[in-house]
């Protein structure tokens, strides 16, 4: 069961990275700068991957 949950969601760091990136994108989409969401989300996620690589 633990393996199943970890496969679906990863660890707390992965969840934190993905969650905060999606939150940033969702908020950005409700501002006049919504057009930049297509660039901001990938940049946030790449930064997240960089952070996870150091963990």
């Amino acid at each position: 069961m633990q393996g199943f949950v970890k496969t679906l969601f990863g660890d707390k760091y992965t969840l934190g990275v993905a969650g905060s990136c999606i939150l940033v994108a969702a908020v950005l989409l409700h501002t006049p700068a919504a057009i930049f969401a297509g660039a901001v989300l990938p940049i946030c996620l790449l930064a997240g991957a960089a952070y996870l690589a150091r963990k």
Partner: protein
Amino acid sequence: MMGALIATFLTATVEWVEAYTIVLAVALSIGWPRALGAAGVALLFLAVLTTAGSLILTMIHDLAILQFVIGVFLTLFGVRWLGKAIARGAGLKKLHDEDAEFAGLRARADIHEARAAWWIAFNGMLLEGLEVWLIVVALGVQTHHTLAAGSAAIAALLVVCAAGALARKPLARVPENTIKFVVGSGILSFGTFWILASLGYDWPLGDAALPVLFAFYGLGGLGLIRLYSTKTLKLGTV
């Protein structure tokens, strides 16, 4: 659709190679029929999970919700694999070594006991297969090609079985980290695309944004490997 099939095939290849190492280690203790039996039961379980997962997701009739759910799972998977591949590529973490994995399994005391060994093979196959299951269901349902995605995973299994039958030892020469890097970038591209699409974002390039995202994550990841490698070298020389 082709990108989804390639990503499924590559993900499955990496996972089946790891599963093969476990089944091989067990087979040397309890024989091939019982080891393959354990792997077969795990595969059957995965097939049932795939059917159930696909059915559950197809019950979501709102396209935006479906895209968001699948996008989140793919993002969680992709960012994890890309991060891991960057860390291993830069030397921050040890590369996955099938030979060492095999030696570790053979050194376990319980692998020589029939029932425990059976569970090791079953559990190993199931846990490695869960990531294949996730990709098959997520990419399959979203592209409406679950059967094709499942076939890609089975094709990868046949390739690994054939390679294993020829080699009769762990498949240590498969470039697992390179494959993980490519798959991580690809899966993260699909996740990013579908999350924003589900939130109402209109991608300026449409579907053509996917290869752009893939190039961004790939080149960005390579840049990070280079950056971290340089830092590791500098720290090592101090």
